[in-house]
């Protein structure tokens, strides 16, 4: 069984963001980078499937600049067999359709039985790429999964709905699934596995080799949202803040009487 997992590197969401010189994206300098949270569930699910099947080959793919390799190594340490970096310094400027076109080109060359992706990325959050890849390949896709199982070519899964209800769905491979938070418990790479991962194959493919589709949309500008809340911001040491919060609780709420 041939498995692909699509992963993305994103900045720490607790960062202080700045807008770049072009005014259309966040400045990439001085940020801490990590694996998109949703993709951690995708990697974990794929590794669990490989463990279940024994005979499976697991490729992780990411599109991005050189720093992307660090994150790919984490996926290798989690249990993927091979990493592929589609080298692209401008990946952050591509729309979801272009990104999907690159993955689809790669997937066509390798005939995967199952493709895993996160349901969305934490920075762009389009929730489009996985579904687009599947549609480009003409295979079924199941999205927003919180439960996954695979037996004899059939995927049985639960999609999460609003309010925490679930839809029970199934389809046959080849297929693509997108992973929601809480699908499993992503493992932490152990030191021996981090060492092993260093010896695993990590290929780099220039983005131009994968026929990127032309852009379909443009960012006119990026901005900080206008502050709508008129909230008070309290700063200081903890005991001073506790004092001030007490006063606020007494004056602004009725919970202390």
């Amino acid at each position, binding site marked *: 069984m041939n498995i692909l997992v699509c992963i993305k590197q994103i900045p720490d969401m607790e960062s202080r963001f700045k807008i770049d010189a072009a005014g259309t994206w966040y400045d990439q300098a001085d940020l801490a980078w990590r694996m998109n949270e949703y993709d951690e569930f995708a990697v974990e699910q794929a590794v669990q499937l490989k463990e279940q099947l024994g005979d499976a080959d697991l490729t992780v793919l990411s599109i991005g600049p050189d720093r992307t390799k660090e994150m790919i190594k984490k996926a290798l340490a989690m249990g993927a067999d091979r990493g592929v970096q589609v080298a692209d310094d401008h990946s952050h400027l591509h729309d*979801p359709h272009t990104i999907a076109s690159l993955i689809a080109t790669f997937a066509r060359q390798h005939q995967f039985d199952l493709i895993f992706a996160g349901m969305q990325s934490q920075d762009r959050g389009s929730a489009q790429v996985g579904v687009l890849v599947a549609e480009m390949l003409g295979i079924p896709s199941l999205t927003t999964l919180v439960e996954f199982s695979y037996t004899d070519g059939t995927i049985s899964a639960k999609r999460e709905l609003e309010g925490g209800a679930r839809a029970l769905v199934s389809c046959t491979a080849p297929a693509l699934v997108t992973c929601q938070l809480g699908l499993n418990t992503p493992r932490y790479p152990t030191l021996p596995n981090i060492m092993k991962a260093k010896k695993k194959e990590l290929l780099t493919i220039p983005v131009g080799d994968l026929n990127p589709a032309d852009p379909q949309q443009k960012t006119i500008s990026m901005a900080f949202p206008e502050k709508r809340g008129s909230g008070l911001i309290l700063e200081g040491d903890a005991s001073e803040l506790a004092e001030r919060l007490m006063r606020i609780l007494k004056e602004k709420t009725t919970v202390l009487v």
Partner: protein
Amino acid sequence: MKILLVAEYREGKLLGTSAELIEFTVRMDAQAVMFLVGNKQNLPQFDGRLYLADAAQAGEFNPAVHKQLLLEVIAREQPQLIAFPHSSYGWDLAPRVALALDATQFSEVVDVQEGHLIVPVCNAKLQRRMKAETEKTVVTLQAGAFTPTQSISATPEVIDLPVTGAGDIDFQGYEAAAAGGVDLSKAKVIVSAGRGIGKAENLEMVANLAKALKGEYAASRPVVDADWTDHSRQVGTTGQTVAPKLYIACGISGAIQHLAGMKKSDFVIAINTDKDAPIGEVADVLAVCDLKQLIPLLTEKINAQQA
């Protein structure tokens, strides 16, 4: 401009999102037609043409078939824009339709400014103003972003859509959210723990503060996903919706899916080390501080006062 609105239907019921779709067309100053896989007995309040396919035939969840039906309506009506709710139904179906139409898609649109669509980036810390370079555009709308200003009372002109073809996904039905546990809707005070608590043991600190205030403790999703507490305590779109007199968010960043579950609270205090955390948008007070230091001190003061 003409917009095709895609209404939602689940477990035999029309979902409330169609009113927000209509409000979007008002904001876009556009004409609207509507599409629904649903049921004649349960029509949306809408003054216009409604293309209706029977859910009993098409299946409530059957994206390949719903896509085909939508493409037929689009061929007939030639809308420039197709709008879905950004929901489990909408974000699943929209890209399928967009690709078939060679249309670009903007996801989770939160606003219209000078005719341009605005989408959030990085947990809404940033936003982008977008421009489509395709003939048609597909959008999904963030829940709550286009709250109707007036209620509509109208009966649509129904046009029946025959259903043909089968899908590539087998849908076997629904499983309800786990029942039981705490009923947060009755609590006057809720103290909620987010991933910022760092580890399961620190949940006790949050529970103690809740106890001091005679309230309940709750949690954001990662705390539930990590099994630090059970799902009945989760606040947000896939958990409970609450509106207590006081909501204290401890180490919660304020993702839209969390805000949707608590923004109607009377008074919100957030404790967060990140001064820019989006929870600040709905908080009356944001205390920028390590919760591990502040919560015990605050709890102590409240207990002393209540004694």
